[in-house]
């Protein structure tokens, strides 16, 4: 344990200084920064002026919060709770009912333009947003009130970023992500179902250290975490290049750790650092465990990445009441149909020729007579 009273004070005795420094170094590594910034990060993280955070829950399963609480390298839950001043979090706070709502109001009033607003869950917009209400107010109301007053918004999870599962077709509640509602505000999307908590932590530390968000891609995702395809850093990639594929789960190829491309792995079209960062402090991740990537960090993945065990989504054909066909079927129909039409066309041509030549010769005979 360190003798630094401030550190001890600050981390509440739950985390050793060593663990704390390791956490900061890890955050720096995740961000792709040099070790030189670690002292700066430590300083920022230990500053008594902890940025207030308001954490809003809407249409979600709380999986993102759960995943964050279970992060363990090093005990990121503790680190997060001490790094920031979590003023409002429906799952974690002690307050309830009127008191809780009071907390939210106070936090916003006191820290306008200073607090970080973390949004977890999609926001329904249909019928005035009545499909998600907290304390009698719609999610739409709450987010339009809170988000513009924040310093910046972090949309954690695919639901808050892009609408998520409730925005899947036919999207009965008209659910959307924060970026579709709140305009003119810095919004950082950390999608995933759930996202890797280390990406969230690294983003927070970046904001604390530099006061600005990390570099973002077109979809508002931090590039340090979502800048590369899973496929490009996948441990099974050599098998892909070699043409060695799992044909079905449990076959010899699967046992040998071949590429999961043919059983529907969406790694080639999914941006995330899962293959590098891994999960749960044990180096585990879906593809490593033998299951293909389902593409959960991409917008609309419930529509575009399904079925999970196929490359490409089914195509909606608006005939006969609507059929959802496999994309492969389209090809069969196109080629089969073309071949059939060609054969029929050629047969008609040949038939006509035979017919006219028979007719012609009989006419000739008639003429001779």
């Amino acid at each position, binding site marked *: 344990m360190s003798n630094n009273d401030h550190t001890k004070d600050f981390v509440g005795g739950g985390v050793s200084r060593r663990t704390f420094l390791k956490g900061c170094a890890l955050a720096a590594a995740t961000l792709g920064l040099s070790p030189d910034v670690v002292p700066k990060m430590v300083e920022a993280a230990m500053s008594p002026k902890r940025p207030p955070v308001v954490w809003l829950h809407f249409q979600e399963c709380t999986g993102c919060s759960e995943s964050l609480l279970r992060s363990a390298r090093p005990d990121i839950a503790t680190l997060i709770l001490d790094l920031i001043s979590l003023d409002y979090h429906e799952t974690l706070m002690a307050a309830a009912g009127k008191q809780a709502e009071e907390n939210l109001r106070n936090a916003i009033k006191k820290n306008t333009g200073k607090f970080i607003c973390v949004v977890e869950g999609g926001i329904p917009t249909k019928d005035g947003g009545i499909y998600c209400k907290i304390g009698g107010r719609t999610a739409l109301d709450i987010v339009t009130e809170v988000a513009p007053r924040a310093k910046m918004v972090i949309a954690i999870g695919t639901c808050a970023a892009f609408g998520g599962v409730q925005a899947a077709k036919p999207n009965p509640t008209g659910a959307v992500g924060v970026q579709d509602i709140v305009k003119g505000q810095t919004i950082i999307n950390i999608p995933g179902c759930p996202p890797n908590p280390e990406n969230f932590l690294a983003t927070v530390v970046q904001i604390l250290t530099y006061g600005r968000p990390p570099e973002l*891609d*077109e*979809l508002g995702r931090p590039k340090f975490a979502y*800048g*590369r*395809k899973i496929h490009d850093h996948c441990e099974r990639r050599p098998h*892909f*290049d*070699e*043409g*060695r*594929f799992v*044909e079905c789960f449990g076959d*010899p*190829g699967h046992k*040998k750790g071949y590429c999961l*491309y*043919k059983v529907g792995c*969406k790694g*080639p*079209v*999914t*941006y995330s650092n899962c293959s590098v960062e891994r999960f749960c402090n044990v180096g585990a991740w879906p593809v490593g465990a033998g299951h293909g990537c389902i*593409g959960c960090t*991409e*917008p*609309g*993945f419930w529509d*575009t*990445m399904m079925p999970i065990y196929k*490359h*490409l*989504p089914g*195509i909606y054909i608006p005939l006969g009441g609507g059929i959802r066909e496999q*994309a*492969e079927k*389209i*090809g069969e129909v*196109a*080629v089969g*149909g*073309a*071949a059939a*039409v*060609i054969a029929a*066309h*050629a047969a*008609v*041509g040949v038939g*006509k020729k035979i017919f006219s030549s028979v007719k012609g010769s009989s006419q000739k005979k008639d003429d001779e007579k």
Partner: protein
Amino acid sequence: MIRKEPRLYYRVFVWSGTLRLFHWTLAFSTFILVLTGIYIHYPPITTKWAEFKPQYIMATLRYWHFCAGYFFICALLVRFYLFFAGNQYERPTDFLPINKRNLQSLVHNIKFYLYLTDEHECRMGHTILAGTIYFILFICGVIMGLTGLYLLYPETPMVARMGHDLFGTPQQARLIHYLLNWFFIFFIMVHLYIAIWNDFKAPDAIISGAFSGSKMMPADLECPIEELEKIPFEK
């Protein structure tokens, strides 16, 4: 209908060397793209679990796919240039159904292909039906090129922005890229069949024209003489 025989034909030069270069570059690159593309989409197992020898087959075929893709894009650029700078038969105004004459010709074309008439319309350039389909193919080719570039360079900021604005996520681009592939296969089948069929039915000799750039045109009334006279004869 009895055809006037014997008929006098002129060999007239229609397709410039640049257009033929475009045609064959597109043809060969499409052929390679379709074959390697099908492998990339659905790679058949070639190892039999034994890993008998290293083959690097997916990487190699992907490499061929990308190389052929560049030839394909170059061919499209050449065709785009010819839309404006080509001879009169290579410009869209000649082969798209945008005026009365071309519309009439289109109706006649369709009748001819449906065996409703035996009267072959001798046209210097593309028939209107063919021209329209080629134009659609060109548009599809552009979409193929753009989705292909998006899938190949999804991390290049400019390409990523273009792809994201036009097609959405790479998965959506991949679906478009895959579906249009079937249009190309469909087109190759129909195109080859129609070319051969026309060689039987019509006197223009369009298959050899794809190499030589010339067409056989009858010298009598059925072809537009005023156009024919403007054309320099080859031999």
